[in-house]
């Protein structure tokens, strides 16, 4: 699917589609084209595909089928959770306060900030220099007025696994009426979401981080958790998300998630070896460092900085040599915006701007690491030579 000469190290942005997922989706698109909301045989065939997908996703996320709401993206799932739960909490008189962390994905942060303009009280809990939510500070933000807490399970930039079970405990103790949402979009590839998020009412996932298609996500809505829908219409998804169902997308998500769960241990073991080799060699470069606490990172994440190097230039040299990596948080134009995640971790702008993310995944191979290691150290040296950078003494 990708040129053999390309080292694709941007799995946190998106993954290649798994061939069996593609086949399953093509089959649905080609044959089971019916609208699953209908009553005839063609509709029933599509409905059967949709509900089988729903059962599969529910099983892999530790939920029941009726708790799965298919959406058109992870962002939509996050938006539905944040807007939907906050508005429902307000309507029920459960409190207008929303607590998130400063390193949430923009799909959560921007939604919460929008709610702040609608009169909700929004607090952003700080994180440690290692990129983990500061539990004590988070606890201080919680009170009886808290109606919604959102904590990502794994951060998209630095790959840190967040202590969701501990946060759940804190929230239950201090904010008994609060609904807990977790953005598990980055987590599903690497951790057991069903276990770690067992006590969260709302869980977002996205297919394309798992070898599935872009344009499909899901939100777990536990039990009778009140949720005001974003899309009103024909009552699909139990009235929580109107719009004709994307059956092929749901099938793709289900199959990608199932493959991910089935292979997870093997993938983690394999990718950990690749990651350790990649990270180890890169950190031998003088004045380099890793962003994010390595002890709590998912296997696929390498986030490294090289003093005095502009990541924007480094990524161009990498790309020209067939290495696809990323920095900051990408925006639609292809520009890289300064990372608010690294800023929240306390990195100064120069160090944040000198950092890149290499994210591995199920499709990564030794050759990808070989190429990255053939390219990046030389590129760092070239840019430092051009910029006349003095290497800082390492402590």
């Amino acid at each position, binding site marked *: 699917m990708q040129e053999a000469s390309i080292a694709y190290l941007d799995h946190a942005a998106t993954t290649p589609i798994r061939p069996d997922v593609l086949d399953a989706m093509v089959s649905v698109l080609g044959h089971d084209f019916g609208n699953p909301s209908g009553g005839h045989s063609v509709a029933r065939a599509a409905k059967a595909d949709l509900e089988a997908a729903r059962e599969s996703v529910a099983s892999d996320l530790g939920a029941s089928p009726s708790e799965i709401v298919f959406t058109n993206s992870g962002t939509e799932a996050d938006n539905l959770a944040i807007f939907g739960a906050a508005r429902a909490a307000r309507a029920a008189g459960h409190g207008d306060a929303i607590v998130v962390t400063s390193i949430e994905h923009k799909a959560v942060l921007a939604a919460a900030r929008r709610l702040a303009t609608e009169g909700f009280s929004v607090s952003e809990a700080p994180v440690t220099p290692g990129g983990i939510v500061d539990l004590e500070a988070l606890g201080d933000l919680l009170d009886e007025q808290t109606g919604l807490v959102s904590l990502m399970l794994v951060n998209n930039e630095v790959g840190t696994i967040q202590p969701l079970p501990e946060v759940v405990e804190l929230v239950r103790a201090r904010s008994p009426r609060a609904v807990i949402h977790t953005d598990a979009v980055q987590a599903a590839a690497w951790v057991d979401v069903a276990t770690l998020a067992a006590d969260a009412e709302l869980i977002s996932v996205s297919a394309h981080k798992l070898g599935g298609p872009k344009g499909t996500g899901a939100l777990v809505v536990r039990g009778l958790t009140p949720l005001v829908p974003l899309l009103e219409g024909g009552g699909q998804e139990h009235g929580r998300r109107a719009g004709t169902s994307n059956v092929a997308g749901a099938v793709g998500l289900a199959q990608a998630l199932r493959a991910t769960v089935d292979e997870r241990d093997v993938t983690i073991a394999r990718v950990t070896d690749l990651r350790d080799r990649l990270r180890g060699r890169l950190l031998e470069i003088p004045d380099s460092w890793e962003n994010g606490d390595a002890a709590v990172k998912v296997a696929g994440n390498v986030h490294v900085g090289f003093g005095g190097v502009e990541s924007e230039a480094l990524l161009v040299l990498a790309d020209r040599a067939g290495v696809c990596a990323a920095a900051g948080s990408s925006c639609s134009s292809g520009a890289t915006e300064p990372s608010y995640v690294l800023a929240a971790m306390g990195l100064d702008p120069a160090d944040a701007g000198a950092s890149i993310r290499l994210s591995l995944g199920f499709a990564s191979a030794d050759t990808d690491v070989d190429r990255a290691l053939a390219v990046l150290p030389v590129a760092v040296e070239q840019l430092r030579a*051009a910029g006349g950078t003095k290497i800082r003494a390492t402590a």
Partner: protein
Amino acid sequence: MSSMGSLGSVMVAMSGGVDSSVAAAMLVDEGYDVTGVTLKLWGGDSDTGCCSASDTDDARRVADQLGIAHYVFDFTDSFHGDVVDTYVADHVAGLTPNPCVECNRTIKFGRLLERVDALGIDLLATGHHARVEIGPGGRRQLLRGHDSAKDQSYVVAMLSEAQLQRVRFPVGRLTKADVREHAARIGLRTATKPDSQDVCFITRGGRREFLREHVADRAGSFVDGAGNVIGEHDGYARFTVGQRRGLGIAMGERRFVVDVDAGSAAVTIGTPSDLLRDEVSVRDVTFVDGPPLAEISVQARAHGPAVAARLDGGRVLFAAPQLRVAPGQLIALYDAHDPDVVVGSAVAR
């Protein structure tokens, strides 16, 4: 990878406009190894400036059509500091800044050219209507664009021969009509895009609104040439030497701004003859390739006329009296004998 030419590598600054689109296309045709780049320069709330998302999409689409890689460099920090802040500070000082010149000096042929060097790319190209030609001894010369109506040599007149060795302006040898025709022929979506207007970071409300938001202006008096107060204004920073419109005072004959004094916030008003000068003091004189002969012609506006003059140290002496050049404005210097050849630049005091 179709363009891996033996001519070397070039990065084209693609604004999403037709000129830089065609510049990239021409370099691909010539056989260069071409890479496109769009600069994100302004993080403000406008989506209509030179660095808006839709312009970036246009540039990226053109790059796709040409089969070349395309990147976006976020230079908003430099642009804010070196161009926008300078623009504001100049207005506060009562000067008439030229932010496009400043952007060319500090961003496009400053930070971007350094970036191109660091990346190991041989050349930087832009869509400016100017020409870089090989002169005597292989030295590079800077010339006016072939289309005199679209000539942009004025805004790149600060470039040095050393920079010109690494800079290309492919569309400078075409007319604007040629450029659009070329773009249409190869099916570029930018073919009929209107020319950009004015300063990219000033959109809604125009210059006056921008200044109102960003400049701590002070009200003051209109005075005549003898210093007599003849009226009041609400802020000196919005006035420019030579300005006629928007004075808000009724006079019997045509009146112009003759001087702006930031210290006293006084704006001097006079007749056209009060604006005539035999010379202009200059600073920041640059030469493309060493000092020119004393006889030159000078151009003080992007598309104004060039007039005969002599350069005498820190002064430009006009052959015949000229309207006063607003302090802060760039003056492009041309060869008196070959009026297409840029020899340098200076800034009016």
